[in-house]
């Protein structure tokens, strides 16, 4: 079974979703939880069976799909994708378990299960086209979730989300095809296997163009400034569950893809574009933090904060050092947990008051102390307090980039300041002060169902902040192989210099030699 565990992971939810059409409406929630739980356990088993010492791909599966065009059903995971897969199954489980939506629950759960399939698929795919298939397919359930269960502007938001991402992806597709064609020219064979592509060394000018093509697809998904404007709408209109999954998993697809595609395929271009992208990352960090500060709707604050955090992830990714890239992968998980939790939390209050405007609240800390506590913990995690999950990622990302540029890191480091500003002020507006609105006086504190969703997240957020090793170690090993691959493939002097060579390094000594 382990030989096909990835396929099982991918298609089990889809199959279950199909069968779900038969399940009656009342039992659908239980069914959904059961399926998601099984899936989550399977993913945990995957972790258990995963050998953290091997840096390469594991649980590989391969079957020709379109042989004459080199497309094959190629799956495999490494330390980078493993945990995002677990995160996906985890959040689907949490999402369904803490679901408070009452309209058309059956459709919603079926959609969520399909979405789970696409999410796992994206992270498990090693064939560019299979990757693309899941990547695009993930838009459809999300479109439906936002469009059917969303707020007043839901149609605008969902269509914008879909079209924007779709457009970017198509440009990326052209890039993929070009890449495959390049491979064809070099070897006489069509192939879309990423692992095969890794072996290609492209001329630098090709790299630049291809990098740009992939970049557009990924940047819109992340979303990077200035392609980010779909996100606030999507979050603003999406139901809680949609926002949670969107923030926790779907955004990670973009950053994951950078590490899976852009870095190892185009090392020279990655170095070439490092600084422009770092500048964008800085804009994302500071500018969106400012925008978040100006928001009146607490969900928008969290939405913009997502963009800001994604900026740090991007920065870490383009640090092109083991520390930075590991950090960014870890931060993907961290941000997933934290922003997912924050959206869940916003959902809790929205369910009670049907408004997300901070001016409507105030003094919630005295009315809903448990809620305020959990929110506070997650807020602090979001702000990147040490011993919470986000700190590890942010610290490593910034640390990693420091090697490349001091000034940029210093500027980007203001994330910890501006992040604190908008988060704390939002928290202050909603939770502190006297209870001014009579409607808030009798609000119920978080109930059992909601706790079920939130407590695990709190535990994870702190556990991985205190003891990130089980996750960080596999990530590190896989990232090291990526960086080494990049170094070996790099052609330009600058790239060779910027991307560390790990193979002849043992311990600290070489570090000083570098200086």
């Amino acid at each position, binding site marked *: 079974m382990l030989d096909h565990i990835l396929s099982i992971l991918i298609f089990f939810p889809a199959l279950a979703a199909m069968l779900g059409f038969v399940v009656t409406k009342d039992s659908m929630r239980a069914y959904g939880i059961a399926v998601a739980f099984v899936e989550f356990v399977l993913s945990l088993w995957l972790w258990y069976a995963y050998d953290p010492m091997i840096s390469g791909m594991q649980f590989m599966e391969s079957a020709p799909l379109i042989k004459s065009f080199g497309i094959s059903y190629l799956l495999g995971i490494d330390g980078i994708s493993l945990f995002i897969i677990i995160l996906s199954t985890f959040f689907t489980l949490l999402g369904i378990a803490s679901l408070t939506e009452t309209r058309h629950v059956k459709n919603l759960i079926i959609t969520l299960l399909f979405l789970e399939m696409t999410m796992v698929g994206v992270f498990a795919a090693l064939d560019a086209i299979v990757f693309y298939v899941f990547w695009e397919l993930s838009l459809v359930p999300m479109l439906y979730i936002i469009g*059917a269960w969303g707020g007043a502007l839901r*149609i605008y938001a969902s269509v914008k989300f879909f079209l924007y991402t779709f457009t970017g992806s198509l440009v990326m597709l052209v890039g993929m095809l070009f890449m495959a064609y390049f491979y064809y020219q070099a070897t006489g064979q069509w192939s879309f296997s990423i692992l095969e592509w890794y072996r290609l060394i492209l001329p630098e000018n090709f790299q630049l163009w291809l990098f740009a093509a992939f970049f557009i697809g990924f940047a819109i998904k992340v979303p990077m400034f200035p392609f980010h404007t779909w996100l606030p709408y999507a979050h603003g209109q999406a139901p809680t569950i949609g926002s949670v999954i969107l923030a926790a998993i779907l955004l990670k697809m973009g950053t994951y893809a950078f590490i899976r595609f852009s870095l190892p395929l185009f090392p020279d271009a990655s170095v070439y574009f490092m600084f422009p992208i770092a500048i964008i990352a800085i804009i994302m960090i500071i500018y969106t933090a400012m925008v978040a500060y100006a928001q009146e709707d607490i969900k928008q604050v969290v939405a913009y904060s997502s963009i800001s955090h994604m900026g740090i992830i991007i920065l870490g990714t383009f640090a092109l050092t083991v520390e930075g890239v590991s950090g960014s992968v870890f931060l993907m998980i961290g941000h997933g947990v934290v922003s997912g939790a924050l959206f869940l939390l916003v959902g809790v209050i929205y369910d009670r008051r049907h408004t997300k405007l901070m001016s409507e609240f105030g003094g919630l800390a005295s009315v809903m102390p448990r809620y305020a506590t959990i929110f506070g913990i997650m807020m602090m995690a979001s702000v990147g307090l040490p011993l919470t999950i986000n700190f590890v990622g942010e610290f490593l990302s910034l640390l990693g980039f420091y090697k490349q540029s001091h000034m940029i890191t210093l500027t980007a480091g203001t994330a910890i300041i501006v992040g604190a500003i908008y988060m704390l002020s939002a928290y202050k507006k909603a939770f502190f002060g006297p209870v001014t609105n009579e409607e808030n006086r009798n609000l119920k504190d978080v109930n059992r169902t909601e706790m079920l969703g939130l407590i695990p997240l709190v535990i994870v957020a702190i556990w991985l902040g205190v003891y990130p090793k089980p996750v960080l170690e596999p990530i590190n090993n896989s990232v090291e192989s990526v960086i080494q691959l990049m170094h070996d493939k790099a052609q330009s002097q600058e790239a060779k210099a910027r991307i560390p060579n790990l193979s002849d390094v043992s311990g600290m000594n070489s570090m000083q030699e570098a200086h």
Partner: protein
Amino acid sequence: MLDSIHISMASLNIATLAPMLIATVGALVILMIDLLKGGLNKSLYIMVSLLFLLLDLGSLVDFGGVFLKNGTVLGFFDVMLMDGIAIMAQIIIVVGSMLFIPLALTSKRFHEYNYPEYFALFLFMIAGFQFMVATDNLILIFVGLETASLALYTLIALHNRSKSFEAAVKYFTMGALAAGFFAFGSMIFYAISGSVEINQIATVLAQDHYSNIGYVLVAVSFMIAAFGFKLSMVPFHTWTPDVYEGSSAALAGYMSIVPKIAGFVVAMRLFEFLVHSGVVWLQVILYIGVVVTMTASNIWALVQSDVKRMLAYSSISHAGFVMAAILIGTTQSNTGLFLYWTLFSFTNLGAFTMLWVNRQKNLLPGQSSDHPYEKFSGMVKTMPMGAVMMGLFMLSLAGVPPFGLFWGKLYMIGAAVSGGYTVLALIMALNSAIAGYYYLKLIVYMFMKEPMVGYEKFYFMNASHSLKTIIGIAVVGTIFSVLAVNPLLVVITQFVYNSGY
């Protein structure tokens, strides 16, 4: 005074006529049956048609085997040309027709199906298309084209309402003008090469090193105009939306597939050698034509308020997309053309059948067309499976993987990239994105809006078992196309490559 002419039967290769003859005979049989005993139910004719189409298909498959073994077969003084693309195009034509003809079995009664002649004309039309693709003689192409077109005009008009007459008249008139273009263009080719056979024309032009460049270009201009009409390239496309709107949804779906593939094959035969001749002009013109067609029709599709008109514009856009294959002119692109069209057939047939299924007899109150978007609002609430299937077709048309058309787009864009047309590939990609909007619009109506009061009952107005079966086939073809792509590619590549394209 006159030498007797000796012709051996073997050299005639009468078998090359078999597929078309089967269709023609089928039509005649239907006419006979009607003569012998009138007033028979349409189901009889439908089944007879299906039967003959099946025979037709059988003979084509047989030809396919022969082709793979022996290569191109010529017949009847080299008028008939059974090469790979001819066989494939005919298979698409016949299969498309076989999927179409059961759509006549609606639960409502429509005028055209009361005529046995309708089915006879339908078979004649198929024969016409088959002749058109199975030759490189401009005369036979012309006659085949006209046979098919004249039958088609009649079929459209037989729907018998003023919109369908209007559609038929428009189509006919523009068709007559296009026929004039075709004749004039052929005339110029004849003038400079002394031949009306494309192969021969190509040879002579090559020998002359295209010294009569002006003539060639004028001839090509006329030909592009003629085929631009047939393939609905902008600005020769204007008939398409009106004709689709005027005719029944079933026939509109059919028109979006079968006549076009016939046109593509002829265009391929005619333009391919010109593209490769190094005449930059043609490449430029085709480039512009392809881009304008794709983009403009997409933009117009955005603003439609009727689903059928939207699909009409969308099919123009798809045709433009496919025309790119001829521009690129590599084996891969031509393979892509057939792959694309095969996959497109299933999806588009499905989409139009969905329209056909919810066709009501009279216009909805307050609406001026059969299939306004509003009709579909909230469909998921009242008819979830129907909405899901329609959504599926829309996603496929938009090119969302892994549904049918995605693989076609993938391969076509891939062909553009490897043919050196990177910018074109980007334009194709971006156009797919624009197209996403109007397909999405329908999905938005179906899945995200509340049902309109009083419209609920229209969703499956016209459904019957055979229609549902066809939709089922289209759904299966759309979802599981990924499994079919590889075998298709292998076969198509072999056919295309061995035909010299």
